[in-house]
């Protein structure tokens, strides 16, 4: 089998591949990649190099993992999962990423395609106005420094207190939209200044807001779908992909610098500067963890304010309240985060970078509402091909530290995508296929063309067959907003 690496990659099952300790000096655990043979063969060389670099980090347990949407990142691969012992292991900002708690949110509605189609242009225009996107965009929420610090500690709860959401939204978010242990006192003024005006904004890159349709024939598990509010019959749902914006980016930048110095003090060497890390129990490790939680809570709040704006936009266009339109949250899940979780090995700091938590029905961590179904997992595809709703499994908890994929994963560079198609051309082609796109940047739009991504269906099949998540429904785009 021809792969983009010289390392020996061994088949464990048709969906699990292993690189043993002997393939790179310093590896403390084997690396495992979840992928079909076809996806593995297409993976870029960076994935193999980076996942084995991660396997060398102090205190890593069991395996360094990469999901099938994995691709070359910086330090950790995108799609990377690694768990470190809380006592002798490390925490690494590079294992979380710059966009702390970048994540996905799915909102259901009682509307159907027939209801929305005649008003789609009006709806997308309204959404484009209400949810700022693109470089340097600021939101409508004006915060004092004190109030912003409350956002950092209370996350989505702050939004609900201020009327930007419903109390019942909170139970349908990872950690209830508010992670404990956030300490604003250790966040720099630079980070605050960079993010204070950005609550309720999408950003750019691969971030988006998408109006989608769920058809009956694309529901794979009708019982679970119904339990999550997905009824099919050309039902309209709304997906949001974004994170902690400039605030989280600055927290990551600040601590990468601190960790570079800390590594020297703790005698830690890494194979890539971007893997800078510190012992989890060290003062630096604990401070980053607290600051990261501030950013994670801000990301929950960001997606909650965006949800409020989406509900307002739908209410304005359809002349009925969001509640009357059945706009309940299905779930909100992080895919760039580090969390302390308990596994067979004990308490571990699980890093997920472009990977989603996927707890099964048996997990005591889940609220009652998901004890039958398992935790919803939202995977965004390219804006041309569609996305998926899945649920976590108890097998994921056993095999992958309760983790799975997060999206399609890129196969083409941004520059190559732009050379292949222009933004205006793509917008026109998508319109002809029934997908209305509003974009701030036409070059940014071209960079996100479907041809730049893996086939999400094959990626989803990998994790479904491996048993670490189960397919519930496919979601087909009809309208997209990009920064």
């Amino acid at each position, binding site marked *: 089998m021809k792969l983009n690496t010289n390392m020996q990659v061994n088949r464990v099952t048709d969906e699990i591949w292993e690189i043993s300790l002997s393939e790179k000096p310093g590896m403390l655990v084997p690396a495992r990649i979840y992928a079909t043979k076809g996806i593995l063969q297409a993976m870029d060389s960076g994935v193999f190099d980076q996942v084995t670099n991660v396997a060398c980090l102090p205190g890593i347990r069991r395996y360094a993992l990469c999901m099938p949407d994995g691709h070359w990142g910086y330090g950790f691969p995108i799609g990377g999962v690694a768990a470190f012992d809380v006592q002798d292991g490390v925490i690494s900002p590079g294992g979380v*990423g710059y966009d702390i708690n970048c994540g996905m949110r799915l909102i259901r509605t009682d509307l159907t395609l027939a209801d929305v189609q005649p008003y789609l242009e009006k709806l997308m225009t309204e959404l484009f106005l209400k949810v700022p996107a693109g470089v*340097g965009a600021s939101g409508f929420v004006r915060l004092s420094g004190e109030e912003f610090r409350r956002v950092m500690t209370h996350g989505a709860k702050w939004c609900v207190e201020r009327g930007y959401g419903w109390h019942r939204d909170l139970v349908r978010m990872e950690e209830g939209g508010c992670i404990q242990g956030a300490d604003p006192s250790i966040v720099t003024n630079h980070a605050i200044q960079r993010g204070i005006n950005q609550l309720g904004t999408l*950003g*750019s890159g691969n971030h988006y807001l998408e109006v989608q349709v769920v058809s009956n024939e694309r529901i794979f598990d009708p019982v679970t779908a119904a339990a999550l509010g997905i009824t099919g019959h050309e039902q309209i749902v709304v997906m949001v992909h974004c994170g902690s914006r400039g605030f989280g*980016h600055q927290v990551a930048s600040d601590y990468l610098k601190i960790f570079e110095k800390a590594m020297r003090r703790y005698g830690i060497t890494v194979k890539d*500067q971007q893997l800078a890390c510190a012992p989890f129990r060290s003062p630096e490790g604990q401070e980053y963890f607290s600051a990261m939680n501030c950013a994670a809570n801000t990301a929950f709040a960001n997606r909650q304010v965006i949800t409020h704006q989406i509900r307002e936009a739908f209410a304005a266009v359809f002349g009925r309240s969001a509640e009357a339109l059945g706009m309940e949250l299905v779930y909100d899940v992080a895919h760039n985060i580090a969390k302390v979780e308990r596994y067979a090995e004990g308490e571990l700091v699980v890093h997920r970078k472009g990977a989603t938590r996927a707890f099964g029905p048996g997990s005591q961590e889940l609220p009652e509402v998901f004890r039958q179904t398992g935790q919803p997992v939202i995977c965004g595809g390219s804006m041309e091909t569609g996305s998926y709703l899945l649920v976590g499994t108890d097998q994921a908890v056993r095999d992958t530290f309760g983790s799975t994929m997060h999206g399609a994963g890129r196969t083409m*560079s941004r520059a190559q995508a732009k050379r292949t198609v222009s933004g205006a051309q793509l917008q026109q082609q998508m319109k002809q296929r029934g997908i209305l796109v509003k974009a701030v940047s036409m070059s940014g739009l071209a960079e996100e063309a479907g041809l730049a991504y893996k086939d999400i269906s094959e990626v989803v099949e990998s994790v479904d067959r491996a048993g670490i998540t189960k397919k519930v429904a496919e979601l087909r785009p009809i309208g997209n907003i990009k920064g």
Partner: protein
Amino acid sequence: MAWTFRFLEEIALADIAFEAEGESVEEVFFGATQALLESMANPATVSGGWERAIERTDVDPSALLFDWLSEVVYWKDAAGVVFQEAPLTLMREGDVWLLRARLIGAPVDQQTQELHADVKGVTKHLYELKQTGGRWKVRVVLDV
């Protein structure tokens, strides 16, 4: 001035990578700064009006360039601006490198400016400033 830059396609698929080079460290600073400004918006479409003077020192020119580029990204969000140009001078006084720069730009305007990527951060992934064959080069990966 003989600085140049080019965007790299073969690394960091989801992000933006570029290589800048020049005959001096100062020229590399020019090239890398220009590549960063163009990653965020077309400078030719950005008017002036917003300006910030920035002065920084470091004994390590590589660290100084990294901090400077990070500072540009910071102001993009903190002031909600994109940039037209960033004239700069780089001097060496003993062991210390001194950067004096002016960031010139305007508040983001989606109607008049050609906007590109919202850069999240300057990464240390494959980051390297070095002198090869008489020319200075730096490779930078931006998280977008």
